[in-house]
């Protein structure tokens, strides 16, 4: 098995969602390999199947959201409400779990392992919390996970707070939990750090966790692109 890695510095949320679905169809048809997309989004609130906008976990009015240009999108992933914004790395693996034991929850634990490993590379100790999927540093959440699986092909995935404006999390009850607080690598390390500094470690740990199944096709570059770049 091999993995293609696609890096785009920024992508609009809905565009990235459509792109994942295209890849899911191509993966199912066997026309492409497993693919890992790494990107960032402009600020957007997404709600998985476990929640609804009407649940009251968006804490500001539509007018406030409009003024900030933040859309609320109900989507086809597991989990509840989350927020994406610049400074947060999002990773969308489109992979065929038939090659990984057909186990959706083991896949969640594996994604956590990737993030815990990548954070370790940057000197941050992080943990799982039983019953609260994601990665935590103490009682603060640094990484959220919500996946979709169709015909055992995965989409959606995992986010990692590298250097987002954490104030934005005051717009929502993260994951539908009233007391959950978000943290970031920047806050923990108490210094500036960029997504570009972090994503190589995520790729390395992705390969490590998903084992020797993979050979990577190419090394990966960065840069603003109009389209997703195979790199």
């Amino acid at each position: 098995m091999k993995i293609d890695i696609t890096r785009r510095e920024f992508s609009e949320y809905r565009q990235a969602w459509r792109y994942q679905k295209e890849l899911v169809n191509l993966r199912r048809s066997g026309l492409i390999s497993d693919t890992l997309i790494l990107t960032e989004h402009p600020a957007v609130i997404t709600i998985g199947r476990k929640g609804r906008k009407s649940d009251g976990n968006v804490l500001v009015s539509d007018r406030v959201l409009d003024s900030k240009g933040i859309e609320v999108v109900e989507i086809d992933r597991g989990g509840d409400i989350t927020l994406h914004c610049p400074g947060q790395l999002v990773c969308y693996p489109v992979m065929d779990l038939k090659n990984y034991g057909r186990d959706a929850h083991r896949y969640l634990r594996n994604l956590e392992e990737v993030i815990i490993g990548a954070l370790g590379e940057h000197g941050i100790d992080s943990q799982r919390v039983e019953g609260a999927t994601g990665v935590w540093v103490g009682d603060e959440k640094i990484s959220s996970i919500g996946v979709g699986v169709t015909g055992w092909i995965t989409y959606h995935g995992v986010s990692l707070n590298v250097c987002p404006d954490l104030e934005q999390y005051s717009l929502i009850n993260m994951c539908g939990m009233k007391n959950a607080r978000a943290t970031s690598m920047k806050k923990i390390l108490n210094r500036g750090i960029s997504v570009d500094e972090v994503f190589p470690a995520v790729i390395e740990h992705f390969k490590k966790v998903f084992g020797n199944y993979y050979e990577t096709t190419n090394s990966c570059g960065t840069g603003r692109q109009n389209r997703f770049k195979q790199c």
Partner: protein
Amino acid sequence: MKEIILPELGEDVKEATVSFWHHKEGDEVAKDDDLVEFYTDKANFNVKSPASGVLKTISAKEGEKIEVGSVIGVIEEK
């Protein structure tokens, strides 16, 4: 008749909640059409139609928790 079964989703996944059906009873469906979505804690699953025909019965309602391996509906094959 072809039973639609909630498949095994993983070792520690015993049940899942019906999110919604893409079709209603009486609809014609083709094999591999998206049929019904389920979710567990952080994963969402799309179950595809096991056969072409008419969606005769839906026995798992939206919002209902279902054990894996359960029959959730029936397709009358053409």
